[in-house]
């Protein structure tokens, strides 16, 4: 493994340069990242230009050029999954932000037993996604599920939330938002702790209305963290796999397939490794763009501080 840090050995007046002194500190981490992340990604880029099956190691890969990419781009199913993914991300992240913000405003002031009550809200994000997924699929069961039990007295018929595309997507969003709203709450609570108290006091002395106080004191202070929450949850939701896998497995039909589940199916059900890698690389590109925005948001926060 060589990185730019290794090249910086220029010595000035006898003392080793900063680069040279930093290298031994940064190198082990970069070595691990290269081995387990960068190398596989490079391999993934390489193999995406071939027809290759990871289950047939003795059949040599066949060069296809950019055919995998062209194929994906002209596949209406892929665009369908992409639209599914975007719909699910935007709805789920919006719900998470709203619920998370409400929770944060509810919980940012101390009260007796706050620590304990906060644990009730934090429990969902501490659960394994498999547990959340499996239990929600039980809640959504038409015969035994609690959702159906609530609806049945009104309609007289069992209700299957996972039965139609729209309700299946909604069901997934509810589970995802329930699990991750507390995370947004945590981020916003951290942001609210950073609001200087004297600003609150000054606003109170000025007899500013709560509404005005919110927009002039609180909002500017948490705007940055809100943006971080938005971007971080967007990226994480883009990678959402576990809940779909355990709740709907992409169904009904392919209405809840996302890009992640499509990569999984292509790579580990159909074993079309080359094509799966090409799709994976496209998703990495999307994530790099989103991360760039996230990074910019962090820099903005630093400059504001």
């Amino acid at each position, binding site marked *: 493994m060589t990185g730019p840090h290794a090249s910086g050995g220029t010595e000035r007046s006898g003392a080793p340069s900063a680069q040279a002194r930093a290298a031994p*500190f*940064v190198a082990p*981490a970069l070595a691990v*990242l290269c*081995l387990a992340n960068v190398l596989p990604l490079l391999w993934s880029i390489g193999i995406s230009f071939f027809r290759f099956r990871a289950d047939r190691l003795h059949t040599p890969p066949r060069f296809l050029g950019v055919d995998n990419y062209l194929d994906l781009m002209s596949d209406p199913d892929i665009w369908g999954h992409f639209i599914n993914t975007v719909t699910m991300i935007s709805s789920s992240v919006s719900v998470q932000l709203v619920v998370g913000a409400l929770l944060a405003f509810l919980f940012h002031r101390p009260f007796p037993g706050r620590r304990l009550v906060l644990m*009730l809200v934090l429990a969902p994000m501490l659960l*394994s996604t498999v547990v959340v997924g499996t239990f929600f699929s039980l809640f959504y069961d038409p015969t035994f599920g609690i959702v159906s039990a609530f609806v049945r007295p009104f309609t007289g018929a069992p209700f299957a939330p996972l039965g139609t595309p729209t309700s299946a997507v909604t069901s997934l969003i509810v589970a995802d938002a329930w699990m991750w709203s507390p995370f947004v709450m945590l981020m916003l609570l951290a942001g609210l702790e950073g609001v200087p108290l004297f600003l609150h006091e000054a606003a109170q002395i000025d007899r500013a209305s709560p509404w005005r106080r919110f927009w002039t004191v609180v909002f500017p202070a948490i705007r940055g963290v809100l943006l971080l929450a938005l971007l971080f949850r967007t990226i994480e939701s883009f*990678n959402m796999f576990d809940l779909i896998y355990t709740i709907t497995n992409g169904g009904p039909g392919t209405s809840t397939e996302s890009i992640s589940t499509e990569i999984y199916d292509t790579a580990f059900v159909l074993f079309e*490794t080359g094509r799966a890698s090409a799709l994976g690389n496209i998703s990495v590109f999307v994530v790099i763009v989103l*991360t760039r925005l996230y990074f910019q948001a962090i820099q903005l926060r630093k400059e504001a501080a």
Partner: protein
Amino acid sequence: MQGEELGRRRPAGFGRTFVATLIGLIYFFPVIWMILAAFKTRADALATPPKLFFTPTLEHFWASFHRLSADGAQVFDTGLDRNFFNSLFISLVSVAFALALGALAAYGFARLRLKGRDTFMFYVLVLRMVPPITAIVPLYFLFRVSGLGGGYVAIILVYTAFNLPFAIWMLKSFIDELHRPIEEAARLDGSSELKILWRICLPQMRAGIAATAIIAFVFTWNDFLFSLLLTSVDTRTVPVAMTRVVGADVGVDWGVFAAIGTIYLLPVLLIAFFLQGQLLRGATFGTVPR
């Protein structure tokens, strides 16, 4: 530090306390449903409306670890104890590695002027954000070819690498906040950089290390996808083993599933309760000052 902060803030009134508690209980409903289901018999668990009062049973906890033979004469091990050991071992080791390597790298990035540091930090962050499934496709193949597949080394390497970017970002943010003069003094006295990190920086940032460790631990402990595709029978962790209970041909054994889920939640719930303040910091990748 958090207690002090809270002490200064205006406490919530009765109304807000009441609403917060109520919302907390509603939010907790699915979790308490699971915990109760772990103690219910099968008939009680699937009853609608859900039964609040029932005779608790421990049979599911027993059945999580043991299985009777068809004639009921012999008791077999389900192997779940092994899965628990794997989850704990793999999580602890990979978090420890991520913290150690992350602390070194964070110190390097924070204290020693590196050319192109921001670019490095950006790509480190990108590696944390890459969709896990995208990374798994090549890893699956590379581990198979190298013969590492299914072993502890492979999965620990993967989790270490996945937690590292987060550890670097978090720990760097804590190092950035430390006061420099003591370090400068030690540097003038001829202390090595490693000694400064170990003796001066790390002891001052115990809370930060705890915050980093919890978030990384919770992620690794609960991860499903990496474990699903990169572990074997010997190294399988609990989340993957749980899906076997679901996939059983007799239909889902909800009681057993709930029992395993409950046991699995308990340690993280306790850690989170005692280190709640650290979770706040951890949720923002360390970008919010104390």
